[in-house]
């Protein structure tokens, strides 16, 4: 067990003490106004010592301006920043903090990750690739990766207010979140003022990757309690889960060949 290398997003400041007891020491704080798909977010001033700022929004110009302004007075206790939007690289390049790029569905091959590592200290590898591909990339990079090992995976992120629109159209009371389903494919839908996220159900459990010798392991704890995390880490949870694409390579139809 390498719980000390786990970075976990937190849902409440009260969770920290309980997470420490699990040996988890690195906390990512979803930053207020810079996240989608996350009900509980935090101000920079609420971040405890050695915390990571976590931003998963794709930013418009105003977002970039606001973040630039926030980062100007960044407290010294911030350990790092985890982000998706490439526009943030320019904003953080001179900051003496750890920079972790989480490009959600990109970072699926070794060469691209190597290039991004010229700009950041670490990247979170995509969950859209197989265990074999993940291992290959991690080995080639000598453990410079962060590997997503547990949590609900964001399968779609829309700028639109899909729940609000649905409620208005059908004249229903607003209910956030929703579970939707088609032919056994289920998603948990959650929206905030910055858009709507679809999380794939069931939960993604890639805890078997904890033996990879990666730099960090990432747990997205949104919609999970500390007790859930504890049970999942100990293998005693009743929560339904799958291993995403670790054992199932996705396909796409390539017609022909360059030599055709």
């Amino acid at each position, binding site marked *: 067990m390498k719980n000390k290398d786990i970075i976990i997003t937190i849902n409440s400041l009260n969770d920290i003490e309980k997470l420490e007891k699990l040996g988890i020491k690195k906390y990512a704080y979803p930053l207020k106004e810079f996240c989608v798909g996350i009900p509980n977010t935090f101000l920079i001033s609420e971040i405890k010592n050695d915390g990571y700022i976590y931003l998963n929004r794709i930013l418009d110009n105003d977002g970039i301006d606001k973040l630039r302004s926030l980062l100007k007075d960044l407290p010294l206790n911030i350990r790092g920043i985890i982000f998706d939007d490439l526009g943030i690289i320019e904003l953080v390049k001179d900051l003496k903090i750890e920079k972790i790029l989480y490009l959600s569905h990109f970072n699926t091959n070794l060469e691209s990750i190597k290039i991004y590592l010229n700009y950041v200290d670490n990247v979170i590898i995509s969950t859209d690739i197989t265990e074999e591909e993940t291992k290959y990339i991690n080995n080639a990079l000598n453990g410079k990766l962060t590997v997503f090992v547990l949590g609900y995976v964001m399968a779609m992120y829309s700028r639109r207010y899909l729940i609000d629109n649905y409620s208005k159209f059908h004249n229903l009371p607003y209910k956030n979140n929703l579970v939707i389903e088609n032919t056994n494919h289920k998603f948990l839908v959650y929206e905030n003022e910055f858009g709507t996220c679809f999380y794939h159900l069931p939960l993604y459990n890639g805890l078997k990757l904890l033996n990879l010798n990666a730099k960090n392991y990432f747990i997205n704890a949104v919609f999970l309690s500390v007790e859930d995390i504890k049970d999942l880490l100990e293998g005693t949870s009743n929560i339904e889960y799958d291993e995403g694409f670790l054992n199932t390579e996705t396909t796409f139809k390539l017609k*022909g060949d360059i030599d055709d």
Partner: protein
Amino acid sequence: MTELLAPAGDLERLKIALLYGADAVYIGGTLYSLRANVKNFTNDDLSNACLFAHNLSKKVYVTVNMVFHNNDLKKLDDYLLFLKKIQVDAIIASDIVVVKKALEYKLNVILSTQASTLNYSAVKFWQNLGVNRFVLGREVNREDIKRIKKETNASLECFIHGAMCTSISGKCVLSNYCTNRDSNRGGCAQICRWVFNCDGPDFTLMSKDLNMVDFIEDMMNIGVDSFKIEGRMRSIYYIATVVKCYRKIIDGIQNKNLQEEEKEYYKKVLNRVANRDTIPQFYHKFPGVSESYFQDRMEVSNQDFLGIIKGYDKENKLIILEQRNYFKIGDVGEFISPNMETFTYTISKIIDENNEEIEVARHPQMIVKLPYDTEVCEYAMLRLKVFDKN
């Protein structure tokens, strides 16, 4: 001059797009495109596409915009060198390894909308690598485009017409989960068009299509460099119609003679050729209930496209037409063509391949002849007349 950029799924559609007024086309080869399930262009087709376009002093951009897995990289260098050799005008890419390699090979790179670029700082990141044009995310609004232009002076390409992803492009793997087809590698199964069960009425997330006719002039004024039409999988009729309408609108604005009623006419034609409603989306206001569908697929197709010209019999003054939809004597149609004004045509006589007069052209792709005194060029099309221009 603002560029009109059209999609083309094969060589025929490329020719149609360019002849009907596009300044440039974007196309996919058989490798690495985000439309893996269409015919696409073989290497020979790609070469021919460049020759055809360059002869008209027009441009060809090739999509290499999927998100690569390790195994996909094996043929990338050879492919980029091939594209360099045939002198494509740019490639469209989103994965940084493709961008870097293409720039090393001195290919021009357009950053794909798949890279989800919505702010000036992200544009600057890619500019520093050497990218010179950006397809901004469809979610950018007017003020964001204006600011990005001001801060970066980058060449900006914006979608003006066609289907919208519900997701921010590049941020969706619904298809991976529901069908195991990788949306970021060309396998998108359009899950955002599915209907989902929910605790309540069915849940849908389908967006209406985009139509920017009302804002073309404003977009020109704020510095958009290229107007992009979506739809590499669309038909020749769709491409001809949409390209011609926007060509007329752009030229009318540039020549300061576009009348309001003309604009309304083009809007009606564009709405008719699409199988979903087309409206503006993020540019001038935040899209809400009116910009989405909520009850199953509300797609309507029509049979307006009657046929495409295959030649002209000068001696007998007959148009040679390949039938695409049922028509009969007495129907009123109109010809659209690359180099003539659209004109009304009432079908008075139909002659079949045995030189016999018939009442009805009912068989798809049957060749018929229609009398007309003036030569009508190849690639002109006959459609049912639905709207009057004036």
